[in-house]
C-alpha cells in the first residue's frame, strides 16, 4: 500500500480549492458579524465602472475606481488602518446602497458616515470645504483655496483633491479649473464628465 498516494487521494487539491472558497465566504460572514473585521471590502457595478468600497467600524474609508490595483489597495489598507482587511459584503451594505441611489438619480446627498483616517491634515480642510459644494454645483480650485483661507494655495488644493480617498461621496468631481474647465481627476476625466452630466452640471456636447 502506498500510504502517501492513497491519503492524498482522500483530499484532492482541486476539491480543497473549491470547498475552501465556500468556507472562506462563510468565514467572512461570521467574522463581520462578530466584529473581527476592521476593514470590510466589497465591489459594486456603476456607470463609471466597478467600484471597490472599504468600510471600517467608523465609516466609509475609501472608494476605489476600476483599474486600481487590488493588491496595492489591500496592502495600503492593511498598512495604514489594520491588517484585518477582508472581503465582506454586509458591513458595506449602506455605502453601496447610497451609491446605487446616487447613480440612479435618487440621491443628492450622502448620509453615510465617513472615516477620515486616510486623509492628512491639510487635505481634511480641503475636502471639508469640498463636501460643502452641493449636488449640481461647481466650484474652482481657487474658490476652495479661498474658503480655507489659503487663497494662494490653488495648486495644493488640486493635489489634496487628487488624493481624495473617498471620491464621489466627497465630491471632488465638482471642483473645476478657472472658467469651468474640466481638469484633472484621479479617476480620469471621462469619469468626472459622467458624474457631472449625471448631476446636470454639464450640458450635453
Amino acid at each position, binding site marked *: 500500500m502506498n500510504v502517501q498516494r492513497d491519503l492524498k487521494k482522500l483530499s484532492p*487539491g482541486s*476539491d480543497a480549492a473549491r470547498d475552501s472558497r465556500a*468556507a472562506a465566504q462563510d468565514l467572512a460572514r461570521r467574522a463581520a458579524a462578530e466584529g473581527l473585521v476592521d476593514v470590510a471590502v466589497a465591489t459594486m457595478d456603476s456607470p463609471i465602472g466597478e467600484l471597490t468600497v472599504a468600510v471600517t467600524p467608523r465609516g466609509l474609508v475609501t472608494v476605489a475606481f476600476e483599474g486600481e490595483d487590488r493588491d496595492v489597495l*489591500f496592502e495600503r489598507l492593511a498598512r495604514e488602518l489594520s491588517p*484585518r*482587511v477582508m472581503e465582506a459584503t454586509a458591513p458595506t451594505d449602506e455605502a453601496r446602497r447610497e451609491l446605487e441611489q446616487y447613480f440612479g438619480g435618487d440621491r443628492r446627498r450622502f448620509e453615510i458616515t465617513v472615516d477620515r483616517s486616510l486623509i492628512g491634515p491639510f487635505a481634511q480642510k480641503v475636502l471639508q470645504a469640498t463636501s460643502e459644494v452641493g449636488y449640481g454645483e461647481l466650484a474652482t480650485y481657487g474658490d476652495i483655496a479661498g474658503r480655507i483661507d489659503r487663497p494662494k494655495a490653488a495648486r495644493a488644493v488640486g493635489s489634496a483633491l487628487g488624493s481624495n480617498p473617498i471620491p464621489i461621496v466627497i465630491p471632488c468631481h465638482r471642483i473645476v479649473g478657472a472658467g469651468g474647465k474640466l481638469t484633472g481627476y484621479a479617476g480620469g476625466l471621462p469619469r468626472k464628465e459622467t458624474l457631472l452630466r449625471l448631476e446636470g452640471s454639464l450640458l450635453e456636447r
Partner: protein
Amino acid sequence: MSDTHRSGAGRHSIPPFQTFLELNRAPVYRFLVVAVGPQDADDVFQETFVAALKAYRRLTDGAKLDRWILTIASRKAIDHHRGAARRAVPSEDLPETATTDRGPLDADDPLWRAVRSLPPRQRVAVVLRHVLDRSYADIAELMASSEPTARANVHQGTKRLRELMT
C-alpha cells in the same frame, strides 16, 4: 490600531488578512478533510481562521504565516477529537474508534476507517507528512513536540494504516 502592524527592520510586514486567507485556505482545508474528516472540516476550518483573526492584530512578523496557521489548525484538529471523545456516550455497541467523524459518502472505504482509528496526534502527524508533505522538523514545530516524537508519531501512524489495510 495603526501602530500594531508596522514592520521593523528585518521583519516581514503583515499581509492583509484577505491575502493570507487566499494563500492558505486550500492547504488548511486539505489538511482538515483528512485530519478531522470531510463532515467536520468546515467547522474546524471556521474555528481555525476565527482564532487567527483574533490574534492577527497582535502579530509582529509576517514571515512563516503558512506554518502559523497550520499550527492553529493542528491544535484545533486535536482539540476537536478530544472534544468529540468527551461528548461521545460510551457504549459497548459502538465500534471502538479513536475519532468520531462520520466520513464522506464512501465512509466504508477501508482507508477512511483506518484513518479514523488513529489516535488524534498520530492522525494529525500522518496528514501533515503524507498529505501536505511537511518535513519532520516542521511537524515537530507545528505540533510543539520534539523531532523524534514527530517521527515516531508519523511512523507509528503509517505503520498502523498499513496493518489495517492489509
